[in-house]
Each structure stands twice: as C-alpha cells, then as structure tokens.
C-alpha cells in the first residue's frame, strides 16, 4: 500500500464528502434556529472540529500516515491554545477596566458607582 502512495477506495471519499455536507448543514441550522450562548458555542465548535477532523484525516490522508508525521504536525499547534486562553483571560480584564473608567461608549450614560471589579484589591 504505502509503496505506491496514498491510494484508497473511492468509497471513503464519497462518504466523507457527504458527511462534510451534513455537518455544514448542521452548523448552519445552529444559526438558523438561533440557538444562544453556551449551547450555540458548543455546537459550533463540535461541528467545526468534526469537519476539520474529517478533512485532515481523510482528505489530507493523515489517517493513513505514520504516527510520527501525525504527532509532528498536530502537537505543535497546542501552544496556540495557551496564547488563546491567556489572551481571552486578559481581554476580559481590559474590557472591565474600560467599562469602569471610561463608562462604555456612545453618549454619557448614568453609571453605577465603580466597583473596581477590574482590579483585584
């Protein structure tokens, strides 16, 4: 098998092709039925990861590669999760400081007394 490269039954391509359509429709439905907040985010991420997983695994033949290549390509992006998590953490902090000290945007609005929640005492 491996001697002649990545050659696989055509059936599996059609199967994945179909599945990608199904997942796309499903994530589209998430929007159409206006799911909100956590359920929405959860479903979006699930369908996104399913689609991405099938594309990488079958279309990009990752499923048939040796574990050496798979780990070498899929492990390094994990550091990006650290970046993502920390920047999200900080964005909340910066947002709170804007609300407390700049009072949000647009016209002056009646403000509650600052709680200084942004800055830990």
């Amino acid at each position, binding site marked *: 098998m491996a001697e002649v*490269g990545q050659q696989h039954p055509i059936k599996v391509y059609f199967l994945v092709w179909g599945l990608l359509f199904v997942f796309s429709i499903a994530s589209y439905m998430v929007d159409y039925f206006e799911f909100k907040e956590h359920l929405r985010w959860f479903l979006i991420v699930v369908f996104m990861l399913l689609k991405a997983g099938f594309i990488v695994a079958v279309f990009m033949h990752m499923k048939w590669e040796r574990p050496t290549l798979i780990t070498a*390509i899929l492990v390094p992006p994990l550091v990006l999760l650290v970046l993502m998590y920390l920047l999200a953490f900080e964005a909340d902090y910066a947002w709170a400081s804007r609300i407390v000290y700049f009072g949000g945007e647009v016209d002056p609005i009646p403000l509650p007394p600052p709680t200084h929640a942004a800055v830990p005492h």
Partner: protein
Amino acid sequence: MAEAAQTNQGPLTTIVDDWSSDVTTFKAVPWGKAMMWIFLLSDTFIFTSFLVSYMAVRMTQTDAWPYPSEVFSLEAFGTPVPLLLIAIMTFILITSSGTMAMAVNMGYRKRKVAVFWLMFATAMLGASFVGMQAFEWTKLITGEGVKAWQNPMGAPQFGSFFFMITGFHGLHVSAGVAYLLIVAIRVLRGKYDNTSFEIVEITGLYWHFVDLVWVFIFAFFYLW
C-alpha cells in the same frame, strides 16, 4: 519500511523508531510532501494568530458587535435568508475539496486526463468562490457601508477583521487556483509521466488546508 507501518507495534514504538532511524524520519514521505506539511504547520500559526487577535479585540470592545447572521443575510424569494451566500460558498469549497481528493486518487492510478479535469474543476470552483467573495465584499462596502476602518453597526473592528481575514484567506484561494492550474497543465503535458504523481497530492494538501481554514473562519466569524 512498508512492513514497519503494517506491523502491530504500538504507535509510541513507531514514533521512537522513526525518530531514531537514519536517512528519513517521516518514512515513505517524499521531500516535497514533508516540506508542504511543515509549511502548512507554519501557515496554521499565521491563521491562528489572526483569529486569536480577532478574539482578543472583539472581547475588549465596549461597542456593540454586529450580529453576523443578519449582516450577511441575502434576499431570496422575497425573504432575507441568513448567511445564504456564505452557505453556498461553504458548499462550493467542500465540493472542491471532494474533486481535489478524487484528483489525488486518480493521480496515483496514473490516469492523467482524469487528474487534469478534476484539478481543473477544483480550480474553477475555487475561482467561483473568490468571485462570490468579491460580490460579498461589494455588497458589504456599498450596501451596508462597512469599511475596513468604520462600521455603522457598531465596533469598527468588525469590518477590519472581516476584510483582513477573509482577504488573506481569499489570497490563499487565489494562489491555490493558480497553483492548481499550473500543476494540472503540467500533468496533462506529461511532465510527471516517468516519476510519481506525488505533486498532485502535495497540491491537494495545500488545497484542503485552504478549505480547513474556511471551516474555522465560518465557525468563528459568521456563526459566533
């Protein structure tokens, strides 16, 4: 080495064996393919940096963030359908991924005419994707008044990130179309007749990656 992949040793042992061996680390992976994979890894960091920046800036906004579902809706049969064009674009890209996968498969069967037409179809689907994106940009700029630096519906960064991220993705698609056409023509002319058709697989890796990025953009920009 073909046997090594088939034997029943665990993945960890395989990894250790491969990394400890001489000559090649990624067994049965040609140079070009290894290089493309590493390039795609680097490109992943580019797109993720874009998306993480988008997240960080959007979360810091005190201005309203427009509801993309409404912004990108399209009139069809008299009623606005949310994200209609985006849905079509998504399906086009998935379809092109399918034709590309078939082209790779045909390539390893050395059916070069089939490879040519499948790659050509992939390129045309990609070109129509770029065309629709151009339409969407026009609609957003002239119709909704969203510019890269301003946005009548709220935070100006909505337009900035939209144009930057989809633009950068669009550039990847356009480059991919050119790349596909060049390789397709070379295949047809018989440049690879005496060697392997791995170039088709390498092109395919790039094209699937472009599709993969769209999956993330679709989820985080249009649906979130």
